[in-house]
C-alpha cells in the first residue's frame, strides 16, 4: 500500500511511450494499429488514475508526494539555495484532474479513430494527442509551480500543433487554420508572462515553489477530526487499529513519502498540524497561511510589502495566466478561432481539459486567492462578465462549433467566477461536469459535421453520376477535403443543416442530453454544478464580510444567472437549427449516422452527463443524499483544496435558475422552431421576432462584439505603427543613419583613407619601389658586362689571372 502512489510515474510514462512509438514507428503501423496504440496508452493511463483513486479512498485521502526514479533533483543551484525537485503529487485534486483528463481523453481517442479516418496525417494526430496527454498530466501531477508551468507550456504547444493540424488545406483555408494556431500561441504567451511573473514573485517571497513539502499536512482542520477516527494524515502508523502499518518500519526509505509521516519511527509523535515545522521548510501554501497569520513583511531590497499585498500581486499575475489559458476576458479571443482544429481536438483540448488548466491552477492556489480579497473580487467580475459576454455572442453564431466555443468560454467564466467567490469546490465540480457534457457536445457536433460532409459528398456523387463520371473520384475520397465547388459549401454552418434528428438518431439523442445538461436542467450534471456556483455567489454576497467580497458575490450572481439563461437559449437554438425542421441543404438531406467508434464515446459521455452531477449532490434535496451521500466531491476535494467548502442548497435559486433555463428553451423553440430556422440567404428569425432592436441584438452578437476588430484597432495597429515609427524613423533616421553612417561608417572610411594613401602607398610602397629601382639601376649598369661573347669572358679570365699573378708576385719583388 505504501508504494501505491508511485504508480503516478506510470501515468506519465504511458502516454510518453505512446507518443514516442507513434512518432517513430506510427507511419509504418498504419491507421488501425496506430490508433489502437494511442488509445491503449490513454486507456492504460485512465486505469492508473482509477488505481490511484482507489488508493486515496483506501488510505483516508492521504496526499502523497512521489519522487520518480529519474530527475531526482531537477533544478538545483547550491550557491543560490535553489532546489526545485521533480516530484509528483497524488492528492484528491490531482487525481480528479487525472481521471477527467485520461477518462475523457480515452473516449476522445476512440472517437478520433473514426473521425480522422482517411486523413493524410492520421498517425501524427494520435502522436500529438498522446503528447498532449503527457503534458497535461505533468501539469496536474506536478508538486510545484515550475512543473505545472512545464506542463502548461507543453499543452500550449500541443494546442498550437493541433489547431493548425490542417495547415495545408487548399483555397486559403490552411492559412486560416495556421493563423488560428498562431493566434492561440501568441494570446497564450501573454498569459504565460503572467504565470512566470507569479512564479518568480512566489519564489522571491517563499524561497520555494513546492505546493506542499513531503511531511506537511495539507488541511490541518480535517486532520484534527480524523485523528480521532484512527485514519489520520498525521501519522497513521501510530494508530493501533492499523496493524499492518506498524510492521513496516522501513517505509520512510521507499521512493514514496507519504505526507504526514513526521518520522519513520514507529509510534512517533502524531502531528495534526504543521506547527512543528519551521516556516522555511513549508511549501508555498503553508508559508502563505503562516505569514498571513503573522502579518509578515516581504522585503524587496529597498522596500517591503505586507504579505497580503504580495499575495494580491501574485494572484493577479496568476489571473492573467488563467485568462490566457482558460480563455477569459481579455485574452479569450484565441479560443473561438481554435475551432479551426479537428473536432476531437476542440473537445479534448479546447473544452474538456487544457482550457481548464487555468481553473485548476487557481483552485490549486486557493490559499493565495482566499487571502487576496481584491483579486478574488476581480476574478469574480472577470469570470462573470466573460460568462455573460460569451453567452451573448453565442446567440449570433451560425457555425456549429463557434457556438460551442463561445459556450465553452462562457462556462469557463462560470468556473472562474466560482473561484472569485471562493467556491473552489464548486469550480472544480463544474470543471468535471463541464468536461463531460462539453466534450459530448463537441463530439456530437463533430459527428454532425462528419455526417453533413459525407452527405455533401453523396449528394455530389449523385449529381455527377447524372453528368457521367469525371475527375471527381480522384479528389473525393479524403475526408474533409475542400471540394472544388462552384460555390463553397460550409459543413459547419448550421443554416445548411436541419432535420438531422431522423438521419442521426444517436447523435441527436446524446446531443439533446448534452444540451440539457449544459442548460442546467434537473437532474442532469450541469444543474448541480451550475446551481452550486450560483448558490455560492449568492451566499458570498450575504456573508462576504467586507464590501468588496459582498459586491463581488452579488454582481457575479446576477451576471451568472443571466448567462445561465443565455446558455439555455443558444443551445436550444442550435438544437432547432441542426436537428429539427426540414433539411435546408442537399448535404443535410443525405447525412448518414456516424460509425460506432464515434457514437460509442457519445453514449458514454451522455451517461456521464446525466449522472455526473450526483457525485456532489447537496444535502437537503429530495432525499438524494441518502442515495449518493451529500457533498461527496467537495469533501473529497477538501483534502487538497483547503478552502473548498460545501454550500448548503438554495432551493429558491435553483428554482429560479431552472425556470429561467426552461423559459429560455421555450423562447428558443418559439423563435427557431417549426421550420423557422433560417437559410443561408435569410435573416435570422430573431430579427423578425423582435422588430425593434432585434437586428441590433443579433448583429452585435453575430459580429462577436467586435473583439477582434478592436484588438486590431487598439492594440495591433498602434503596435504596428509604433514599430514602424521606431524602425523607420528612430532606428533608420537617427540611430542608424546618424551613428552608423557618421561615426562608424565615416570614421572607418577616413581611417582607411589615411592608411591607404599616405601610409601604404607613400611609405610602404615607396620604400619597396625605391629599393627596387636602385637594384634595377645597378643591374642596368652591370648587365653590359655580360656580353655573351666567349672571348670577352676569356679576356676577363686572363685579366683575372694576370691580376692574381701580380698580387702573388708583387710582394716577392718588393722583398
Amino acid at each position, binding site marked *: 500500500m505504501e508504494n501505491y502512489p508511485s504508480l503516478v510515474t506510470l501515468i506519465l510514462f504511458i502516454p510518453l511511450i505512446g507518443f514516442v512509438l507513434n512518432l517513430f514507428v506510427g507511419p509504418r503501423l498504419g491507421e488501425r494499429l496506430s490508433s489502437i496504440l494511442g488509445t491503449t496508452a490513454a486507456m492504460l493511463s485512465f486505469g492508473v488514475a482509477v488505481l490511484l483513486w482507489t488508493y486515496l479512498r483506501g488510505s483516508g485521502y492521504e496526499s502523497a508526494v512521489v519522487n520518480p526514479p529519474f530527475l531526482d533533483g531537477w533544478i538545483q543551484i547550491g550557491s543560490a539555495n535553489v532546489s526545485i525537485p521533480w516530484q509528483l503529487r497524488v492528492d484528491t485534486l490531482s487525481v480528479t484532474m487525472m481521471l477527467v483528463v485520461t477518462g475523457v481523453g480515452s473516449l476522445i481517442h476512440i472517437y478520433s479513430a473514426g473521425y480522422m479516418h482517411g486523413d493524410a496525417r492520421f498517425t501524427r494526430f494520435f502522436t500529438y494527442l498522446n503528447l498532449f496527454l503527457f503534458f497535461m498530466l505533468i501539469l496536474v501531477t506536478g508538486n510545484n509551480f515550475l512543473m505545472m508551468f512545464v506542463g502548461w507550456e507543453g499543452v500550449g504547444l500541443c494546442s498550437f500543433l493541433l489547431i493548425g493540424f490542417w495547415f495545408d488545406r487548399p483555397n486559403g483555408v490552411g492559412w486560416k487554420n495556421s493563423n488560428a494556431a498562431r493566434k492561440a500561441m501568441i494570446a497564450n504567451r501573454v498569459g504565460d508572462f503572467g504565470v512566470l511573473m507569479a512564479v518568480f514573485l512566489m519564489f522571491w517571497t517563499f524561497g520555494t515553489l513546492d505546493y506542499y513539502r513531503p511531511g506537511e499536512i495539507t488541511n490541518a482542520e480535517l486532520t484534527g477530526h480524523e485523528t480521532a477516527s484512527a485514519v489520520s494524515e498525521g501519522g497513521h502508523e501510530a494508530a493501533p487499529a492499523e496493524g499492518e502499518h506498524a510492521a513496516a518500519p522501513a517505509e520512510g526509505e521507499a521512493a514514496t513519502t507519504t505526507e504526514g509521516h513526521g518520522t519513520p519511527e514507529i509510534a512517533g509523535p502524531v502531528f495534526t498540524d504543521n506547527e512543528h515545522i519551521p516556516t522555511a521548510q513549508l511549501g508555498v501554501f503553508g508559508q502563505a497561511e503562516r505569514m498571513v497569520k503573522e502579518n509578515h513583511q516581504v522585503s524587496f531590497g529597498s522596500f517591503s510589502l505586507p504579505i497580503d499585498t504580495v499575495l494580491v500581486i501574485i494572484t493577479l499575475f496568476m489571473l492573467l495566466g488563467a485568462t490566457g489559458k482558460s480563455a477569459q476576458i481579455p485574452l479569450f479571443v484565441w479560443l473561438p478561432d481554435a475551432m479551426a482544429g479537428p473536432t476531437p481536438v476542440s473537445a479534448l483540448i479546447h473544452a474538456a481539459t487544457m482550457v481548464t488548466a487555468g481553473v485548476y491552477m487557481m483552485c490549486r492556489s486557493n490559499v493565495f486567492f482566499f487571502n487576496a480579497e481584491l483579486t478574488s473580487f476581480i476574478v469574480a467580475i472577470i469570470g462573470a462578465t466573460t460568462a455573460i459576454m460569451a453567452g451573448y455572442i453565442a446567440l449570433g453564431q451560425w457555425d456549429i462549433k463557434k457556438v460551442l466555443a463561445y459556450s465553452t468560454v462562457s462556462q469557463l467564466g462560470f468556473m472562474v467566477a466560482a473561484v472569485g467567490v471562493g467556491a473552489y469546490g464548486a469550480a472544480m465540480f463544474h470543471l468535471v461536469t463541464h468536461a463531460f457534457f462539453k466534450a459530448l457536445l463537441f463530439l456530437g457536433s463533430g459527428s454532425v459535421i462528419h455526417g453533413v460532409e459525407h452527405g455533401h459528398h453523396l449528394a455530389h456523387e449523385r449529381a455527377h453520376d447524372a453528368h457521367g463520371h469525371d475527375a471527381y473520384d480522384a479528389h473525393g475520397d479524403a475526408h474533409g477535403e475542400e471540394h472544388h465547388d462552384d460555390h463553397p459549401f460550409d459543413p459547419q454552418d448550421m443554416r445548411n443543416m436541419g432535420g438531422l434528428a431522423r438521419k442521426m438518431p444517436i447523435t441527436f439523442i446524446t446531443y439533446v442530453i448534452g444540451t440539457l445538461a449544459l442548460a442546467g436542467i434537473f437532474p442532469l450534471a450541469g444543474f448541480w454544478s451550475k446551481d452550486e456556483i450560483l448558490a455560492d455567489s449568492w451566499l458570498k454576497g450575504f456573508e462576504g464580510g467586507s464590501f468588496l467580497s459582498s459586491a463581488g458575490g452579488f454582481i457575479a450572481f446576477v451576471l451568472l444567472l443571466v448567462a445561465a439563461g443565455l446558455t439555455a437559449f443558444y443551445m436550444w437554438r442550435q438544437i432547432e437549427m441542426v436537428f429539427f425542421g426540414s433539411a435546408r441543404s442537399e448535404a443535410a438531406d443525405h447525412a448518414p449516422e456516424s460509425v460506432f467508434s464515434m457514437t460509442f464515446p457519445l453514449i458514454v459521455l451522455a451517461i456521464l452527463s446525466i449522472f455526473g452531477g450526483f457525485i456532489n449532490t447537496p444535502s437537503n434535496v429530495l432525499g438524494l443524499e441518502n442515495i449518493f451521500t451529500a457533498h461527496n466531491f467537495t469533501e473529497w476535494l477538501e483534502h487538497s483544496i483547503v478552502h473548498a467548502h460545501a454550500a448548503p442548497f438554495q432551493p429558491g435559486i435553483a428554482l429560479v435558475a431552472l425556470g429561467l433555463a426552461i423559459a429560455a428553451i421555450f423562447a428558443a423553440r418559439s423563435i427557431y422552431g417549426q421550420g423557422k430556422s433560417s437559410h443561408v440567404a435569410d435573416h435570422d428569425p430573431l430579427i423578425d421576432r423582435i422588430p425593434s432592436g432585434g437586428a441590433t441584438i443579433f448583429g452585435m452578437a453575430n459580429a462577436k462584439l467586435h473583439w477582434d476588430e478592436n484588438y486590431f484597432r487598439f492594440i495591433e495597429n498602434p503596435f504596428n505603427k509604433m514599430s514602424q515609427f521606431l524602425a523607420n524613423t528612430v532606428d533608420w533616421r537617427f540611430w542608424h543613419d546618424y551613428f552608423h553612417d557618421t561615426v562608424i561608417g565615416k570614421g572607418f572610411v577616413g581611417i582607411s583613407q589615411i592608411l591607404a594613401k599616405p601610409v601604404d602607398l607613400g611609405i610602404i610602397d615607396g620604400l619597396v619601389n625605391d629599393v627596387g629601382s636602385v637594384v634595377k639601376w645597378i643591374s642596368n649598369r652591370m648587365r653590359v658586362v*655580360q*656580353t655573351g*661573347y*666567349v*672571348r670577352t669572358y*676569356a679576356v676577363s679570365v686572363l685579366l683575372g689571372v694576370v691580376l692574381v699573378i701580380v698580387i702573388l708576385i708583387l710582394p716577392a719583388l718588393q722583398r
Partner: protein
Amino acid sequence: MLHTTDFVILSAVLFILGAMGVLLRRNAILLFMSVELMLNASNLALVAFAKQWNQMEGHLFVFFVIAVAAAEVAVGLALIVAIFHSKNSINVDELHQMEG
C-alpha cells in the same frame, strides 16, 4: 747547351701566342687549338723546371695536363659538333644568347 731560361722564354712566347689566339680568333676550332698551345706552353715550362731541379713532380704534372687535355678535346670537339649542328657555323661570336 740550352739554358732553362731559354725554355721558359719559348714557353712564355708560346703561351702568349695561344692566349692571343684565344682572344682574337673567332673560329671555334682555332680557339681550341690555341688553348692546346697554351697547355703545351705550360707543359714546356714544367718540363724545363723539372730538368733544372732534377725532380720528377714536373713530369708528373705534364702527364696530368696531357691526360686532362685529351679529355678536354673529347668534350670540346663534341660541343663544337653540337654547336655546328644547331647553328651551321662555328663562329663563337654568334654564340651570345647569354648576353645580359
